[in-house]
């Protein structure tokens, strides 16, 4: 058994973990970054499309380019890292068990940063009835098989779910000569970014059918067809509208789930809304000295934000490891009308500056985003459009942490306006 001690162990080397490792090191801590894959960069290595780095680098990078920029920063900062090493256990005492090709490693850390990313929702989680043939892939798996493994996953493709990964894969497959028949979305609106809808579907004439879903799957060995039907606002299927679509491949782009199995082992409490850890505004979880950032905390649509979160968390974890502050708990942030979640979920009582990240429950037009601190309105902004697929970030400069903080959406009355 290999034994080792560090100030800070970072689990996962995606944009979140890489950033956290860099900033922890730059804040003077002794850091070890541990990655399961044979390479650094996390999910970005398979996201070969562009659209990364606009915020952090002011450049329009592809996923691999963004990752390489981050890895360069890691190497410049001199952060030691392990690849091909998977953390299989973590406890409250911040002891990690790591499988490496050289042996099993026990790593004892003063602070741990969780940056394990997410996994995709599968057919089982969606509960689609029908047969169970070959040819059903989640969009991210398809992305890996096509972009990294160079494999042709099918010929005639239907995509269920208009999440960004699904939209991006629609274009990828079309470019590689597959027949992308249509994208089917259960919501009355496209759940991915407008940019992706326009550039991935409309550019290539791929139809998007809204308020519809797949209600049956056919084919015993390889997929042969799916049945599509319309749904109402409450997702009740209208059986008079069924349409059978012949296809040999079905991609599912129906959501990502933070990968918190290790976090649970360390006793970290999770938020039902985000499926990530409950954190305070230093991103410390309910388990003292364990921090969380990136997609394992809440799903980010933009890698830059995952990295920014990582930079912040790395610094805080380094401060904690040096004993600069103690676990606090703090006061819960209230989630008001129109808001689906807020991160952080708690505000420490020793801070009056906080950054809140949140998503809305549904698309809104012409509304006000309001933050109240006790009875005072501390933030007020009119927005023309907010949609659930975009994360909102706002900074509050001087709040009173003893008083409640509440985020909500207020619909602007057109007549008064």
């Amino acid at each position, binding site marked *: 058994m290999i034994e080792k001690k560090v100030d800070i162990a970072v689990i996962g080397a995606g944009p979140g973990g890489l950033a956290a490792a860099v900033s922890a090191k730059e804040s003077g801590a002794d850091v070890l970054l541990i990655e399961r894959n*044979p390479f650094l960069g996390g999910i970005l*290595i398979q996201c*070969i*499309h*562009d659209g990364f780095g606009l915020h952090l680098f002011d450049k329009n990078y*592809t996923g*691999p*380019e963004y990752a*390489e920029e981050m890895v360069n920063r890691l190497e410049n900062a001199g952060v030691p890292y392990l690849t091909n090493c998977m953390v299989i256990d973590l406890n409250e005492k911040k002891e990690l068990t790591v499988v490496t090709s050289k042996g099993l490693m026990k790593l004892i850390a003063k602070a741990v940063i969780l940056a394990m990313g997410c996994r995709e929702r599968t057919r089982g989680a969606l509960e689609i009835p029908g047969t169970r043939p070959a040819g059903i892939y989640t969009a991210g798996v398809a992305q890996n098989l096509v*972009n*990294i*493994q*160079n494999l042709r996953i099918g010929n005639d493709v239907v995509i269920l779910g208009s999440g960004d990964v699904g939209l991006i894969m629609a274009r990828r497959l079309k*470019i*590689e000569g597959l027949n992308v028949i249509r994208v089917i979305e259960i919501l009355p609106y496209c759940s991915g970014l*407008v*940019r992706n809808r*326009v*550039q991935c579907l409309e*550019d290539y004439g791929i139809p998007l059918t809204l308020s519809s879903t797949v209600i049956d799957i056919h084919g015993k060995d390889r997929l042969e067809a799916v049945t599509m039907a319309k749904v109402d606002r409450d997702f009740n299927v209208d059986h008079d509208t069924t349409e059978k679509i012949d296809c040999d491949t079905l991609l599912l782009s129906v959501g990502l789930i933070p990968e918190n199995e290790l976090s649970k082992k360390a006793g970290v409490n999770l938020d039902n809304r985000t499926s990530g850890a409950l954190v305070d505004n230093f991103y410390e979880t309910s388990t003292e000295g364990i921090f969380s950032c990136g997609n394992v905390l809440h799903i980010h649509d933009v890698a830059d934000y995952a990295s920014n979160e990582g930079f912040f968390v790395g610094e805080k974890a380094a401060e904690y490891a040096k004993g600069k502050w103690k676990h606090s708990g703090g006061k819960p942030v209230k989630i008001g009308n129109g808001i689906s979640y807020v991160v952080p979920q708690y505000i420490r009582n020793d801070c009056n500056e906080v950054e809140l990240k949140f998503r809305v429950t549904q698309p809104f037009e012409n509304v006000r985003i309001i933050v109240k601190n006790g009875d005072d309105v501390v933030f007020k902004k009119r927005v*023309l*459009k907010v949609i659930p697929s*975009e994360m909102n970030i706002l900074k509050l400069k001087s709040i009173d942490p003893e008083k409640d903080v509440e985020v909500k959406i207020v619909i602007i009355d057109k007549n008064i306006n």
Partner: protein
Amino acid sequence: MAQERKIICILCPNCCELDVSYEGKEILSIENDRCPRGLEYASEELFNPARTLITTVPIKSRNWKTVSVRTTKPVPKSRIFDVYDEVKKIRLRAPINRGDIIIENVLGFGADVIATRTVKE
């Protein structure tokens, strides 16, 4: 004769749905734009629509089967598949550095096709 088109501006999250009327290479009117960049975008989209092509190239390497590539700047949208056909002919061997030019000035569009990832061995 004047023609009309709906164009969704994707330059910022507002995603204005622009109603544009144009004749020849001239925009006559634009509606629903919330800022001046909308006009700029609409004229690009109408008269010179261009896109970045992103794909992969099969490689010989110890651990990798592909390297990802892109054009250094957008190429005419209507010719995307012609550029793709050029890239499709290419096979590479490691080592490859990010930024290596794989096709120079592809089809004379002024864009190079470059590798977007480093493959050491």
